[in-house]
């Protein structure tokens, strides 16, 4: 351990501002990196989807209808199907909307 430092008000304030700035700069740079990585992944995901969509456009477009009452597939992570059903029912009740008008993408237990 180094010897103890006593700071004057000026250098104390300067250190505090510098420290806060370092945290901001560090996390801003990290944010930039994550945004770039995220964009690369989103673009990669979009590319095969477009490829699939292209031949479909050439063929006579059949009207695609969602079956009435279908809520689509719900991905469950660490969640019991019974709990998931209960959660969906509660959300529908709280929003005052019929369950078949809502779309649940995934349900995950927050630990």
């Amino acid at each position, binding site marked *: 351990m180094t010897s*103890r430092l006593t700071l004057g008000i000026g250098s104390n304030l300067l250190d505090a501002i510098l420290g*806060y700035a370092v*945290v901001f700069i560090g996390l801003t740079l990290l944010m930039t990196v994550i945004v770039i990585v995220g964009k690369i992944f989103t673009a990669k995901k979009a590319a095969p989807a477009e490829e699939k969509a292209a031949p479909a456009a050439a063929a006579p477009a059949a009207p695609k209808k969602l079956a009435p009452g279908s809520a689509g597939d719900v991905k469950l992570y660490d969640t019991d199907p019974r709990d998931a059903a209960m959660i969906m029912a509660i959300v529908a009740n709280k929003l005052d909307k019929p369950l078949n008008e809502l779309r649940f993408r995934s349900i995950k237990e927050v630990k």
Partner: protein
Amino acid sequence: MLESLGKLVTESGFAGFFSNPDGWRNLVMIAIACVLLYLGIKKQYEPLLMVGIAVGCLLANVSSVFMTTDGSLPDALYHQSLWDAFLDHTSPYYHSYGHIMANGGLIDILYIGVKAGIYPCMIFIGIGAMTDFGPLISNPKSLLLGAAAQFGVFFAFFGANLLGFDAQQSASIGIIGGADGPTAILTTTKLAPELLGPIAVAAYSYMALIPMIQPPIMRALTTEKERAVKMTQLREVSKTEKILFPIIVTIFIVLLLPSTAPLIGCLMFGNLLKETGVTERLSDVAQNALMNIVTLFLGISVGATMVGSRFLTLDTIKIVVLGLIAFAFSTIGGLLVGKLMYKLSGGKINPLIGSAGVSAVPMAARVSQREGQKANPSNFLLMHAMGPNVAGVIGSAIAAGFLISMFG
């Protein structure tokens, strides 16, 4: 026989309360330990650590009153005198773990894990294994809120200096505002070990009190309209992104600030174990067995540093007050940047998620969720608040790394 009886009485702890000059302080600390036990057990204030800290405090103070007639070290679990020699530059036992191992009691030996910075890092492995960074990856702007909520750290650092603490002590007090127990313990152990007891107690107490400290500040700084904002659903994050995240953060942040390596490295290692999908057994151990064992050792050994002669000082009261200020200003910092993001996004971001940037996972995010739902019952802010919440863990580790590199 009377002589033996007399020796037994004079060597007893009860006699020590009166014959030992610091006996009354030990008695007060025993009472404080009982209050902490009550808070941990009955009020459930961070019970996993609080109960251990309280028992450590109790054992250290019960042991400290023993007086040996021959001047040898009493047969106690914790010996403050050994650690004083360990920190004394002039002592032949300066930084001698061997001396501690040879003469120490159980808690002295367990305390080596705190002193060497092992327990906080191991806890960070467990935290990493339990954390889902998905909400942060899908909304990277959360990192700005995690940075903003470190305001209290530097505000309290400035305030502590003005109150007469030296730079190392001020840095250790300031880090309470990071609302992250292991980070506060690691920083204090490295910079101002003499303040470890009060800082650990203040940090964990205020973390437990977040549901009481934050809501009044949140309501004071935001309007009903702002609190009612519903945020759009987060994008789905792929498994590969989740695996890459800890690797990118480790390389990027540690290269930026090498002193963050112990905390960030361990946090991201734990998270990588969780996300790879091929190390499930290790992830399970990190989340459960390892975390529980280290929490047990950390609590009892940190509590043991709360010996009466060191704890009952004016400095402890100052630390408790500064800790509260640090927490409050960290919340304010997060909320103000949250409000700025609300304005810049045209009202799409609920400023309440800013207060979750103080770390204290997941308590602070739950408080944001609850306050948001009070303003708008159909509001679900929890996952949005988890982004700044886990960003706060990284932010407080960077703040600690900065303070250690400046004053360590």
